[in-house]
């Protein structure tokens, strides 16, 4: 499959393709300035046929690669085509080539990590840091990000955040994932492993790359991410590759933990940098919250839960930590229909329709923040109904994050 830069160059060399490609770009440019009202139906027809023609060209299916040369240019081409061919600017499809590697490919290359699957006694994150400093490439890129991320700029400025995030992106783009994942996704089984979990949380130097004075609303953070080609693409990649699916054993619609972990690590160093937010369990979140969301609170909660409560992402991280992969480890049995029972019975429907949180066995995933709407509704009713609050999150299918059609 051609990358979008080559596909675009190839198209511009062919007369028919290049004319249609130019027409389509004018249509896209025009649409941004609402041209359809101005140009009239004849132009619309031209646009439609140009778009139809582009569907047959190599541009239609072109993708990009992380860290490739001219990555930004490639992503710009992808999004301009995607918007016109898909008719919306959702984040449904990833602009990046699927890596199709398996976690086992990563483990096989990582003697240090694979030989001892996640130990419950050892500090796996410390072992990962040791492995990194014993490898020249990892050591070099680790120091290259820790330096800007820990160098104070002034009394009021902890660091140069832009330099720090750029160096972090370099680290995850350049260092073999057996080392970078080891430090990011190391397993810290609950219990006395606080030092391990805190070390894992510190991997990206959150005081500089992640935290900030104020916490923005998650939808406005998502919006500013979408205005940057790299961030938008890494977010689309994450939403696509870590999409949870209740029916699948792995918990992931795309059944690839490796792709999910790669796309999560791809977000680090962007505006949407996520990080671990608690010691226990795997709870991740970008630096944002859903206060002051108005009517969009459910959309905001849904977006935020794509990080804080995503079964696919959690299974992928646990799989890496335990040295396993999709299909090898049964993280969670999918939902099975319950058996039929006779005569007049009144059965509580296990399956809560309509409140967006999946049937999760581990109750510590239900630590909804106290001002979320679900909780309001729940607390109002909870006194009267003996609700064993089973909620159903994983069914967060690739929701339309932006209503613009």
């Amino acid at each position, binding site marked *: 499959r051609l990358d979008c830069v080559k596909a675009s160059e190839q198209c511009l060399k062919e007369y028919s393709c290049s004319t249609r490609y130019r027409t389509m770009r004018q249509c896209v440019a025009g649409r941004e300035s609402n041209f359809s009202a101005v140009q009239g139906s004849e132009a619309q027809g031209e646009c439609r046929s140009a778009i139809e023609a582009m569907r047959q060209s190599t541009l239609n299916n072109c993708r990009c690669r992380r860290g490739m040369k001219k990555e930004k240019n490639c992503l710009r081409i992808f999004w301009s085509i995607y918007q016109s061919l898909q008719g919306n600017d959702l984040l449904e499809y990833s602009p990046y080539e699927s890596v199709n590697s398996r976690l086992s490919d990563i483990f096989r290359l990582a003697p240090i990590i694979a030989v001892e699957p996640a130990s419950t006694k050892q500090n796996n994150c410390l072992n990962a*840091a*040791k492995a990194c400093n*014993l490898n020249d490439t990892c050591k070099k890129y680790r*120091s*290259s990000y*820790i330096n800007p991320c820990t160098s104070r700029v002034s009394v009021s400025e902890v660091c140069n955040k832009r330099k720090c995030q750029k160096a972090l992106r370099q680290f995850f783009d350049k260092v073999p994932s057996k080392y970078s994942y080891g430090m990011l996704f190391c397993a810290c089984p609950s219990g006395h492993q606080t030092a391990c979990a805190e*070390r894992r949380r510190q991997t990206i130097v959150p005081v500089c790359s992640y935290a900030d004075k104020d916490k923005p609303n998650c939808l406005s953070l998502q919006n500013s991410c979408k205005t940057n080609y790299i961030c938008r693409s890494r977010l689309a990649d994450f939403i696509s590759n870590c999409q949870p699916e209740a029916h699948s054993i792995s918990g992931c619609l795309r059944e690839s933990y490796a792709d999910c972990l790669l796309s999560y690590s791809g977000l680090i160093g962007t505006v949407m940098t996520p990080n671990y937010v608690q010691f226990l369990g795997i709870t991740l979140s970008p630096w944002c919250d859903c206060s002051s969301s108005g009517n969009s609170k459910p959309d905001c909660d849904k977006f935020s839960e794509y990080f804080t409560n995503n079964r696919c992402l959690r299974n992928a991280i646990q799989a890496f930590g335990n040295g396993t992969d999709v299909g090898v480890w049964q993280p969670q049995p999918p939902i099975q229909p319950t058996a039929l029972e006779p005569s007049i019975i009144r059965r509580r429907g296990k399956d809560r329709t309509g409140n967006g949180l999946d049937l999760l066995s581990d109750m510590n995933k239900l630590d909804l923040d106290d001002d979320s709407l679900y909780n309001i509704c729940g607390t109002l009713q909870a006194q009267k109904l003996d609700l064993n609050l089973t909620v159903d999150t994983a069914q967060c299918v690739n929701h339309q994050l932006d209503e613009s059609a």
Partner: protein
Amino acid sequence: KVRGGNRRGQGCVLKQIHLNVTDLGLGYSSSEEMIFRYCSGPCRKSETNYDKILYNLAHNRRLLPKDTPPQTCCRPISFDDDLSFLDDNLVYHIVRKHSARKCGCV
């Protein structure tokens, strides 16, 4: 375990030893580890007239004993990338020019 041993007459070479950060003795307390590379070995073959003259003057006591200047040294001519690590209080540190990358007689 010291690696990159000094075969007879091999001269000034790069050697390495696998250490805990704490072993460096710089005051950091961290369980992280690193490879420390250093330069060791004789530099006889690369002496200049200057070194020969120095040797002769020292030998003939033309220089004050406490003032006998050093001769060619096997030293790093470039250093490894910086070392960074988290100490036991989970504070990041960076140590610069801590390990040799290339050796030479200077």
